[in-house]
């Protein structure tokens, strides 16, 4: 896409039609700097031009929603003056180009989205997907991404308390790296991305601006990979967690002292976005002086300054009389700052460089007048073929099947990953990685915040609507088993090339499924992200929505259920919708049969609500609750045995039911008679005891073998074995 002979707008990734609308808008030839601004602001990544129309489908209202989609992060009311800010982002293409820096700057970016709202970021969750680990290239990417998340997250001082890993050949040329961040703030600290009234001063805080990442995130995330992606390499950005840490502390001091009118982070589209969006939101214009911007390298052109995606920068909007105080806070925290703009009446954004006006455009037009595509969509013919060939049953003895599954890197222990992450900082991590939802205490209150992030590309490949809905329900159940009730969702929609009608169909179906499930549970979507063009050489990834669910436990169960609290003599119950032997889209089908066929079991609204309600209640009495997902009941029980270092016996279930992943079910373990189960579907399936796990008819499996298989699933592969 970048051969010098092409007109500038094409070289900037803009179509001829889009160029025409710029002409219409300005009623003249755009200047280079203006074209640069429109090209990044109108890129898929920044403008959501292919998805915006459909995202309106999401339910976004609820009495506890303080800020819905549209701002840098969603904000919900936790009561007693506490608010939570949450957001999820993807950094897929940058992570393929340079796994360490791509993942690191992804973390930096999502943190800024959250502390832009006035919140202190308290936790991160990473959802990462790669091709199979037998390929050294995938091991390199996996290792690089995990080190990048660790390198940035640990150093910036925000714990990564959970996440999700999946491996599938469809991610080999296009890994997925999503990161979710949760922040907490007092109501009075809430800040929005507004430029305020005329006279307000714009102060650029943080890292000096350099040529790095010119068109990086926006261009990289808005086109597919092909032989030309080499050319995109020079725009790799390098993160500086140290700078970000100082920026967080400085901004939090600004908020606590009420020194800012508004704040906007600089991410994709850099200064172009951080000036036009806040001005547009406030319905004002702005004078911007590029000569005032503190730069890392000399001789940068106006377009470069406007497009640069240099990391760790924030724009603060400050009333004139407080400018000195704000600059003083910046220098106290040892970050650079510069007064770069002044809000003006009217709605024109005027940018000057070396004394000349280089851009003069309607501020709001960069965001509001972005193209809006209703791309054609078509239901793929192959869906019916897939549905027409149902999944086979499991042929091997359940014990053998279980060991195969526990040895799978997506099911085995995630310790290799999460032990590289500081997941304990701030002393709030009550339930960290290695279980279901994470549970964080809110000190000084009896509240617990639960978060679960769930994705499943294979399920959504077979049935994007049912798949999208089941992810919401699974995430809801994951927070419920910690004692929390679902409150709000953020979503990250990772899809292929939207110019293909089949991909658009998958996208719409997914949005519909997620929306219906949220309506069922009565919870809003408060934010999210769309990542298109996840294709390599024409092959699209599975549709891979990732759902991040926030739940509130009030009071937080003390102690909460833990996988490690099972003990000799306790009973094992399976609670929720009775499973069918359908293995379509399950881990068993993938690992044991290497297949992906059939139609997954459809979700059931009533059962979904019931299971969530019951789990959240039982969490106050049952020592162990564990939702049933990857690997079904068999894996869920095995995980409990491993964590509690005790055996178990599961009676009278045939193998397919042991590994079925049908939704709306969880395992409860408790002393007989200590827990009263509410009306509804619940089955006693076995007992805890001994040092072996026995599944139905098959040979007992020694606990140590279970534990080692589970522990080594990832490490033995990363060792190149």
């Amino acid at each position: 896409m970048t051969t010098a002979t092409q007109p500038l707008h094409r070289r900037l990734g803009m179509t001829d039609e889009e160029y025409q609308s710029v002409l219409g808008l300005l009623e003249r030839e755009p200047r280079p700097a203006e074209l640069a601004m429109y090209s990044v602001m109108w890129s898929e990544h920044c403008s959501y031009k292919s998805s915006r129309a459909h995202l309106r489908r999401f339910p976004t209202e609820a009495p506890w929603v303080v800020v819905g989609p549209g701002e840098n992060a969603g904000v919900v009311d936790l009561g007693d003056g506490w608010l939570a800010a949450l957001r999820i982002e993807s950094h897929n293409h940058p992570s393929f180009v340079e796994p360490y820096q791509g993942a690191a700057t992804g973390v930096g970016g999502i943190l800024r989205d959250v502390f832009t709202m006035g919140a202190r970021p308290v936790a991160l969750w990473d959802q990462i997907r790669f091709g199979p680990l037998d390929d050294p290239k995938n091991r390199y990417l996996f290792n690089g991404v995990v080190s990048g998340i660790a390198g940035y997250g640990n150093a910036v001082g925000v714990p990564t308390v959970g996440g999700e890993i999946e491996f599938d050949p469809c991610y080999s040329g296009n890994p997925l790296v999503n990161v979710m961040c949760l922040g907490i703030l007092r109501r009075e600290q809430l800040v929005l991305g507004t430029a305020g009234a005329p006279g307000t001063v714009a102060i650029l805080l943080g890292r000096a601006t350099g040529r790095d990442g010119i068109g990086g995130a926006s261009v990289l995330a808005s086109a597919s990979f092909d032989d030309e992606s080499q050319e995109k390499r020079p725009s790799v950005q390098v993160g500086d967690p140290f700078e970000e840490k100082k920026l967080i502390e400085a901004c939090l001091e600004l908020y606590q002292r009420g020194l800012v009118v508004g704040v906007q982070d600089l991410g994709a589209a850099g200064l172009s976005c951080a000036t036009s969006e806040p001005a547009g939101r406030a319905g004002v214009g702005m004078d911007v002086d590029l000569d005032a911007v503190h730069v890392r390298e000399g001789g940068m052109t106006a377009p470069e300054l406007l497009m640069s995606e240099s990391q760790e920068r924030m724009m603060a909007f400050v009333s004139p009389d407080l400018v000195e105080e704000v600059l003083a806070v910046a220098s106290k925290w040892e970050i650079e700052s510069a007064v770069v703009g002044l809000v003006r009446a009217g709605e024109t954004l005027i940018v000057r460089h070396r004394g000349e006006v280089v851009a003069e455009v309607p501020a709001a037009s960069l965001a509001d007048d972005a193209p809006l595509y209703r791309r054609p969509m078509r239901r793929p013919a192959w869906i019916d073929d897939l549905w027409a060939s149902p999944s086979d049953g499991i042929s091997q003895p359940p014990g053998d099947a279980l060991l195969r599954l526990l040895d799978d890197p997506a099911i085995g222990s995630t310790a290799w990953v999460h032990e590289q992450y500081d997941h304990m900082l701030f002393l709030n991590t009550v339930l960290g990685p290695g279980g279901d939802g994470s549970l964080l205490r809110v000190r000084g209150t009896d509240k617990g915040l639960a978060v679960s992030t769930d994705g499943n590309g294979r399920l959504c490949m077979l049935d994007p609507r049912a798949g999208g809905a089941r992810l919401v329900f699974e995430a809801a159940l994951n927070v419920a088993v910690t004692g929390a009730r679902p409150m709000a969702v953020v979503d990250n929609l990772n899809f292929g090339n939207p110019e293909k009608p089949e991909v658009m169909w998958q996208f719409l179906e997914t949005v519909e499924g997620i929306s219906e499930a949220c309506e069922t549970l009565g919870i809003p979507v408060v934010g999210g992200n769309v990542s298109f063009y996840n294709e390599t050489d024409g092959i699209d990834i599975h549709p891979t929505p990732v759902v991040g669910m926030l739940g509130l436990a009030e009071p937080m169960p003390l102690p909460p259920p833990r996988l490690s609290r099972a003990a000799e003599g306790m009973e094992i119950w399976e609670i929720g919708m009775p499973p069918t032997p359908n293995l379509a889209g399950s881990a068993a089908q993938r690992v044991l049969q290497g297949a992906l066929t059939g139609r997954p079991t459809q979700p059931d609204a009533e059962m979904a609500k019931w299971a969530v309600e019951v789990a959240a209640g039982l969490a106050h009495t049952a020592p162990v609750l564990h939702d049933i997902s990857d690997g079904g009941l068999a894996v869920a029980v095995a995980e409990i045995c491993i964590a509690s270092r005790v055996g178990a016996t599961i009676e009278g279930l045939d193998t397919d039911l042991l590994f079925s992943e049908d939704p709306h079910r969880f395992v409860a373990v408790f002393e007989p008679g200590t827990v009263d189960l509410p009306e509804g579907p619940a089955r006693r399936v076995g007992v805890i005891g001994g040092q072996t796990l026995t599944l139905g008819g098959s040979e007992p499996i020694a606990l140590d073998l279970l534990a080692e298989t589970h522990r080594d699933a990832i490490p033995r592969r990363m060792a190149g074995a």
Partner: protein
Amino acid sequence: MRVAVVVFPGTNCEHDVVHALSALGGEAELVWHRETDLTGFDGVVLPGGFAHGDYLRTGAIARFSPVMAGVERMAGEGRPVLGICNGFQILCESGLLPGALIANRDLAFICRFVELEVVDTDTILTGAAELGQRIRIPLNSYEGNWVDPGRSGRIALRYVDDPNGSQGSAAAVASEKGNVVGVMPHPERGVDELLGSGDGRVLLEGFLHSMVPA
């Protein structure tokens, strides 16, 4: 007993340390690294984190912060000086403790609970513990691998099984007089059973008790 908890740019465990010390009845205050005067404090903690981004070498730049003059004075007066994780690294760089900390043997960050054994109770960190006592608290570091070519370090806590290659399996090292101690795992992360362990209390209590009013 007033404890100064020093904050460098990039420090991130300062609030956790204040919380843990306060929970144990201590009086802990944050002190910005530009301060030079620590008079009025009975002891000082250099908490964990990534002071100055750990750039160049961990602790290398932090040791020149103005506050380190006050820290050295305290150490000289025999007052308790405790460095946790990054604080340990800073104390080594500044020469208040022997040796240095290099990358973990396996070149990976390690965040998990580790088991420690008390091998010297004559220090400001281990004074309230028993010789041979086992203590389970979280480790959280990339450069936790202590090397001491001069072999002049006094080991106060040992890893029961060494996670990072540290010389003599050292998890905590004390100065000759025992009033300056660096510990790589995080006692402040072990003061609440709800979060996995309360074993860190005996260490921080020992630290608080080791103080005589200034």
